[in-house]
């Protein structure tokens, strides 16, 4: 699971009003190289919940001096974009789980795939 994907995932457990962001508890993390494309990263940034991304990076011990708030004119800062590229697309959670911050319900991540299926009645 890449952090770009994690940034979009929410918990839909019944009764939960804000199941976001899902807390990452990782037991295995990998870094997989992916070709850098400044334009793509730049376009993804406005779609992100930036604070959730920073939190996710922290949970994985991958903060690497990412700023806690977006810097202005980031589109032209290649060094910054490369850092974002790495955290969004190259760091992957292989094993672990995602925990709903409100209900505590855990969604397992196995072989890199988060399982967001709810049981009947949840």
């Amino acid at each position, binding site marked *: *699971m*890449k952090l*770009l*994907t994690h940034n*979009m*995932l*929410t918990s*839909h457990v019944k009764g939960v009003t804000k199941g976001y962001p899902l807390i990452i508890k990782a037991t295995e993390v990998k870094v*997989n*190289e*992916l070709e850098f*494309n400044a*334009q*793509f990263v730049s*376009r*993804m940034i406005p*779609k992100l919940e930036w604070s959730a991304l920073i939190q996710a990076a922290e949970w994985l011990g991958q903060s690497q001096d990412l700023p806690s708030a977006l810097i202005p004119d980031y589109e032209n800062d290649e060094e910054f974009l490369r850092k974002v590229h790495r955290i969004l*697309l*190259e760091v992957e959670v292989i094993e672990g789980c995602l925990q709903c911050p409100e209900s505590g319900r855990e969604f397992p991540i196995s*072989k*890199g*795939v*988060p*399982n*967001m*299926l*709810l049981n009947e009645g949840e």
Partner: protein
Amino acid sequence: MKLKELESCLQQVDGFEEPKILLEQYPTSPHIAGCMLYTIHNTFDDIQNKLVADLGCGCGVLSIGAAVLDAGLCVGFDIDEDALDIFKGNVEDFELSNIDMVQCDVCSIGSSYAKKFDTVIMNPPFGTKHNQGIDMQFLQTAISMASTAVYSLHKTSTRDHIQKKANDWKVKMEVIAVLSEQQEYKESYAEP
């Protein structure tokens, strides 16, 4: 990449080992997948460097194709763990790193991905196995997720119904191709 190259590349994608009939599991043929992706890429430029979602991805033919055509990232969504395992194997065989996947029920996704993706591609279940209307649910979800367009395969017999729904949802619908194999056709939905 030429269409023939893309098709021949997609022929290497492993299909379902034991297709689950009730989930309407069948692999999208390399020919249909190739034609579809080739058009989306060359005519509409909706794959390269885009954030793409593949709903009901199964073993991942469409996602693999999108990744090979340099999608920024393609995320596959499917309910079935076995299918996703095969998809994983395919991703490894092709050595692709611009793919991710989520196990979930597309019909329960809600609006959490609203407009997050540039493009949604899919070959959804048609609703022939006690799940009538599922194709429209997939379509509705896809439209909520995509900021630019949804490309989807449907039975010709449902075309009028889909056009009517598109009007209700205030979405522009276009038939891009009619593929006589399996009598499927595809549409593009673009926000007006």
